[in-house]
C-alpha cells in the first residue's frame, strides 16, 4: 500500500494500480453524496483531475497520482457513495494501466501515519 500527500491510497493488482481515498480523507469529507468517476479508456497525466467527490457541503477533486490509462472504474461507489465512508480502504475509485511504475514519490504506511498525525 502506498499513499499520496492528497490522502489517496494506491495498491498494485497485477500490472494495474488501484486508487482510492484514505480513512482520513473520508473523515475529513464527511458524508459523501456524489462521486463522478473518469471514463474508461481515458489517458491521464499525473496530477490530472480524474474524479470529483461531493459531500453535503463541498466538492473535492481527486488527482491522478500517476500517468496512465483508466481501464476500470468502480460503478458501485457511483451508485452508492456512502460506501466510501463505510469502508474507504476497500472502496476503490479506478484502476490505471501505467506506462512507468514509479512509486518512489509516495509514502508507505508509516510515513503516511506520521503525516496525518
Amino acid at each position, binding site marked *: 500500500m502506498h499513499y499520496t500527500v492528497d490522502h489517496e491510497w494506491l495498491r498494485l493488482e497485477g500490472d494495474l494500480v488501484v486508487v482510492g481515498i484514505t480513512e482520513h480523507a473520508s473523515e475529513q469529507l464527511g*458524508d459523501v453524496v456524489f462521486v463522478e468517476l473518469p471514463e474508461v479508456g481515458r489517458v491521464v497525466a499525473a496530477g490530472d483531475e480524474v474524479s470529483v467527490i461531493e459531500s453535503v457541503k463541498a466538492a473535492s477533486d481527486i488527482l491522478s497520482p500517476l500517468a496512465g490509462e483508466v481501464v476500470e472504474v468502480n460503478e458501485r461507489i457511483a451508485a452508492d457513495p456512502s460506501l466510501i465512508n463505510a469502508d474507504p480502504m476497500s472502496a476503490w475509485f479506478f484502476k490505471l494501466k501505467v506506462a512507468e511504475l514509479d512509486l518512489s514519490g509516495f509514502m508507505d504506511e508509516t510515513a503516511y501515519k506520521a503525516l496525518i498525525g
Partner: protein
Amino acid sequence: MRTALYDLHVALGARMVEFAGYEMPVSYPLGILAEHLHVRAQAGLFDVSHMGQILVRDAAALEALVPVDLRALPVGRQRYGFFTNAAGGILDDLMIVNRGSDYLLVVNAGCKAADLAHLRAHLAADLIEDRALLALQGPAAEAVLARLVPQVSALKFMDYCEADWQGVGLWITRSGYTGEDGFEISLPEAHARGFAQALLAEPEVAMIGLGARDSLRLEAGMPLYGHDIDAQTSPVAAGLGFAISPRRRAEGGFWGAEPILRDLADPARRRVGLLPEGRAPMREGVELYSEISGGAPIGAISSGGFSPSLGRPIAMAILPASLPFGAVIYGELRGKRLPLTLAPLPFIQTNYKR
C-alpha cells in the same frame, strides 16, 4: 470570537469553522447528514448566539427602515421582515418581536455591525451583548421544551413569551430556520451551557451544527442573506413580498418603496426551486441557461446542495417569472450543461404549529 457555548462544542467533538467572525460548529461526530435527519425526525439543538439581538423602541422610525406594519403587530407576536435600501434592495432579513416595552430584533451575524449602524442613524438601538441564543427544532421540540418550561405548549407559530427556568429569564419565540416546529430561546450567557445541557439530557435531543442548519433551511426554501438575497436583490423577486404588509404597500414610506412597489405590481423575476437531474449537486454560482447550448445565462444558482430528506440535489435561483414550474433549464457544471427542473418551494412539507 466565541459564543458562550464554545467549550461545549469542543467537548462534544465539533468540527469548528470561522463564520461571521465567530468560531462555530459546522458539525459534530454524528455528521451533517445524520444531524439533518435527526432534526426532521426528533429534535435538534443549535447554538445561534452569533446572531445579533437588538432592542429598539421607536416604532415609527423603525417602520421607515422595514416595510412591516408594526401598528398591526400585537404584543407577544413576531414578524419576519427585512431592511431595505434606497435602490429597493435588501440590507438584511430579520425577525421583529413586539414585547410591549420594546421591540426585539434578531439579525444575521454577518450583518450585525452594519444593521446596528443603520438603525442608529435613525433611532436608538441597544445591542444585547450578554445573552446567548439557542434554537430547538423538530417534531419533538415542544414535548422536550415543555418538560423544562411548561408554558411553551400554549405558544403558536410566531408567538413570543418570557418564562422562567430555574430562576433564569428566558425569552422564547416559536419559530426557526428549519421548516420544522421549534423554538428560539434567548437567555443570559452565564446560564446558556446549563440550559443547553439540560436539553441535551433529554433523549430526543442532539446537538446540530451549521452545516445541517444550511441544508435544513434550503429544503424549507428559506433564503440565506448574502447568498439568495443581498443589497442588489429585489424582495419581490426573492419571494419575500409576503413580508411587506398591506398598509405599507398602500402607504410606502420606507427606503426603496418606489422600485419595490413597482416590482410588486409587475414582477419580472421570481425565486424558484430547482431539481438537478441525476446525482451531481449544483451549488451557488452555477450559471443557468434556457437551452442546452448557446444563449446568455438567465440566472445563477443562489443556494444549492444535497437534500438529505429527498436524497437528491436541490437548488434555488431567481429566474424570469415567465418560466413555469416543470420547465427544464440547464446548469453549466464542470464545462457541461446538465438539466434541472423548476419546482415550487419549499421542497419538503413545513410543520409550523399554527
